[in-house]
């Protein structure tokens, strides 16, 4: 009996996870360099770092997705080999991926049992899972209808299914990769309540995020990674967002956007009763009206998929719509011959698309070719009627890269070889330097590291101060609040409300984003 008590004591003393000297290279890129980290049992442990710092690689090694080149994994004090995900699951590790790994046309139950079935026939597993799901729902506030088809669930509920999947597999250690990126603030709060419940039940939670506020709110300890290296683990109470940002980037970073009050002028963009029906016949935008004045940033907040993308597509000229849009007092063509990107650019509208990989760049093209995209008819890029002046484009690109601090400043490098932040700067330089009257910018800092975020925000504010109108769409509420002068919230294709950025807060906007108008008013 004594020995049993002894092992029990040992287990509580040993950390839930200990990684020793983990290294992993992808070709010439060293994603993880000699990483050691220890996570205490029953703790919520944050891992922060910029994009490409190696957080996801490290967790993928822990979950058996990749094999480490060197290093050891210890689970509860036991050295454990994790060659595949099945081994990770056996070791009690569960993972909630950033992009959910759910089969969308399966029911919640089917998703939960997939890979954890008890026998060759489904029925016994389904019955068992239904019972366990009810218990888990009560225990952790993880309510989901077990028979609902996953694609009919909200993103927040889909995430709960992922957590349920892990718990159904008896996970004691739960890894969440950027879990709040797609959630409304209310949903995120609910998630954090769930995580605290898990912690109280003795589970260990690892939270990977780039949102420093979440780290401060919910974690007990936090590890910082930079360029594949572990830069130390600190108690959350002993640090601050500014301190963490500095550790992540390696220099002092301005988290707040430094801007003077706006001095708005005339209306540049006027949108009246705009409706969009997409290819599937679904009405995405439901008769909205908006205006943006010169020298003003209008932020559109909202959870992604509530019509913001379609609004940008209409303005960019690649989605048809009904209603009217005027730029500088003149109506633009929404359905006819002049509803294309070229016509929009001619009217002084520049567009930094939400998804730069799909719409902003051609990844296999070099930086200079990408810089000419959309402006290939510009006289300075052409020699006569037939030939393009490639030398001129390259020189112009090099100058733009210089001014926007793109690294490396090599116009001949393919777009795919730049980091996310530098890719975004290439797009931004192309659009801003055309001196537009209206700049539309979607998710300006998605997948962009903190250092580049600072620079991009400064450029946007500088453009505003030159008296340009800026329409900003972002799912990052913090970004909306710090950049915008006015904020409009979209929900389900409608504008739920407009607020002065200085007179509102995350809570109020969060309610509007969830479609709760009355409470917010």
């Amino acid at each position, binding site marked *: 009996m004594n020995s049993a008590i002894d092992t029990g004591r040992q287990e509580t003393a040993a950390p839930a996870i200990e990684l020793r000297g983990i290294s992993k290279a992808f070709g010439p890129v060293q994603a993880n360099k000699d990483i050691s980290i220890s996570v205490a049992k029953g703790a919520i442990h944050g891992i922060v770092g910029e994009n490409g710092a190696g957080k996801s690689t490290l967790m993928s090694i822990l979950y058996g*997705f990749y094999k480490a080149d060197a290093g050891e994994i210890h689970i509860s004090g036991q050295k454990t080999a994790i060659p595949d995900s*099945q081994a990770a699951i056996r070791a009690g590790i569960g993972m909630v991926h950033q*992009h959910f790994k759910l*089969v*969308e046309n399966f029911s919640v139950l089917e998703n939960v049992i*997939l890979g954890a079935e008890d026998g*060759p*026939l*489904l029925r016994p597993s389904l019955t068992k899972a239904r019972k366990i799901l009810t218990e888990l729902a009560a225990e952790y506030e993880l309510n989901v209808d077990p028979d609902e088809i996953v694609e009919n669930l909200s993103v927040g509920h889909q995430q709960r299914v992922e957590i349920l999947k892990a718990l159904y597999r008896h996970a004691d250690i739960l890894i969440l990769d950027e879990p709040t990126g797609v959630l409304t603030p209310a949903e995120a709060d609910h998630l954090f309540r769930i995580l605290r419940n898990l912690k109280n039940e003795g589970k260990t939670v690892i939270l990977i995020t780039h949102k420093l506020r979440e780290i401060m709110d919910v974690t007990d300890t936090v590890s910082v990674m930079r360029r594949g290296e572990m830069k130390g683990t600190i108690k959350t109470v002993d640090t601050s967002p500014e301190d963490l940002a500095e550790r992540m980037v390696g220099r002092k970073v301005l988290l707040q956007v430094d801007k003077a009050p706006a001095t708005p002028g005339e209306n540049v963009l006027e949108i009246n009763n705009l409706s969009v029906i997409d290819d599937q016949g679904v009405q995405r935008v439901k008769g909205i009206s908006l205006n943006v004045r010169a020298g003003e940033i209008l932020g559109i907040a909202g959870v992604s998929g509530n019509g913001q993308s379609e609004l940008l597509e209409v303005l960019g000229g690649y989605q048809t719509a009904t209603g009217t849009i005027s730029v500088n007092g003149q109506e633009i063509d929404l359905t006819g011959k002049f509803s294309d990107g070229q016509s929009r650019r001619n009217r002084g509208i520049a567009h930094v698309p939400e998804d730069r990989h799909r719409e902003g760049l051609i990844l296999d093209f070099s930086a200079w070719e990408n810089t000419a995209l959309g402006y290939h008819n510009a006289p300075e890029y052409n020699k006569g009627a037939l030939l393009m002046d490639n030398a001129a484009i390259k020189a112009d690109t090099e100058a733009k890269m210089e001014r926007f601090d793109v690294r490396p400043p090599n116009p001949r490098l393919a777009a795919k070889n730049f980091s996310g932040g530098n890719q975004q700067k290439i797009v931004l330089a192309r659009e801003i330097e055309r001196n537009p009257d209206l700049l539309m910018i979607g998710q300006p800092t998605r997948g962009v590291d903190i250092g580049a975020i600072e620079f991009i925000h400064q450029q946007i504010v500088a453009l505003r101060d030159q008296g340009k109108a800026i329409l900003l769409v972002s799912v990052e509420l913090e970004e909306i609040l710090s950049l915008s002068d006015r904020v409009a919230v979209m929900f389900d294709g409608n504008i739920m409300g407009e607020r002065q950025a200085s007179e509102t807060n995350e809570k109020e906007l969060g309610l509007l984003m969830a479609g709760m108008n009355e409470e917010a008013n």
Partner: protein
Amino acid sequence: MENLDTIIQILDSTIRLATPLLFACLAGLFSERAGVFDIGLEGKMLAAAFMAASVAAVTGNVWLGMFAGIGISLILALIHGLASITFRGDQLISGVAINFLAAGLTVVVGQSWFRLGGRTPALSGEGRFGQIDLPFADALRDVPLLGPIYSDLLSGHTFLAYIALLAVPASWFVLYRTRFGLRLRAVGENPGAVDTAGISVVKLRFSAVIICGVLCGLAGAYLSTGHGAGFGKDMTAGRGFIALAALIFAKWRPWQALGTCMLFGLLQAVAIRYQSINLGEFTVPVQFMDALPYILTVVILAGFVGKAIPPKAGGEAYVKER
């Protein structure tokens, strides 16, 4: 009474003609539900028809023929699997290659083996699948209505036709009631979900491709040793593609596949029975009747039958994301 006889004859012929379609359609169903698109159904059927007829002609044993047909179809299926799963190649190109390979090799090898201009010797006796009479078929023939339906329509088909019909509920059960089926459907929708659940995407997809190979083998063997009596050049005549159309029409579901294959079988049966139809002054030409199943195929593929949503991960090789 004569009308009833005609109807029963047409329906009887419908079952015969639908059998190879049904095998091929279910073959495609397993493969595509697992995310591997297969336009090589035609080629696998053709190769299987050839091997089945050749081996049956040489050995005089139809069972050996059938297994030879399944064997060659399996080999082609594994080539498709190797190209599209292991080497992550383009599934359409691999399928097209298999179709070309089968169309060419069957004739060349057939000529070299039998010197009959690409045909195999005519089969008879033990070299063919015989008709199976269901119990009491003769005794019940005189019962009004139900008698002929049982004795003439349902009874008297070959072994493989009954297997094809039984394969429908079997496929349904496997897909919707078993662990294997759940995983198979999942890997065609989101292989990432399967991979993170700790199940091998490659193994699952290969098992689907193997099932597809076996079923295509049965389809081919039926054509040359059950429906026909020997192999003739291009004897599949686009049935692999019709089966694909039937699969889309059925929205990748087994019971619906039975229905759509029967519909195509019926069209072919009607075309054979009524070579020309007089509509008053105008006579529908025989070519039009023969083309009917193919016209319907085009109509279905053009999307006139409502929205058919293919398995989401279909046609794409699975690559772990970074």
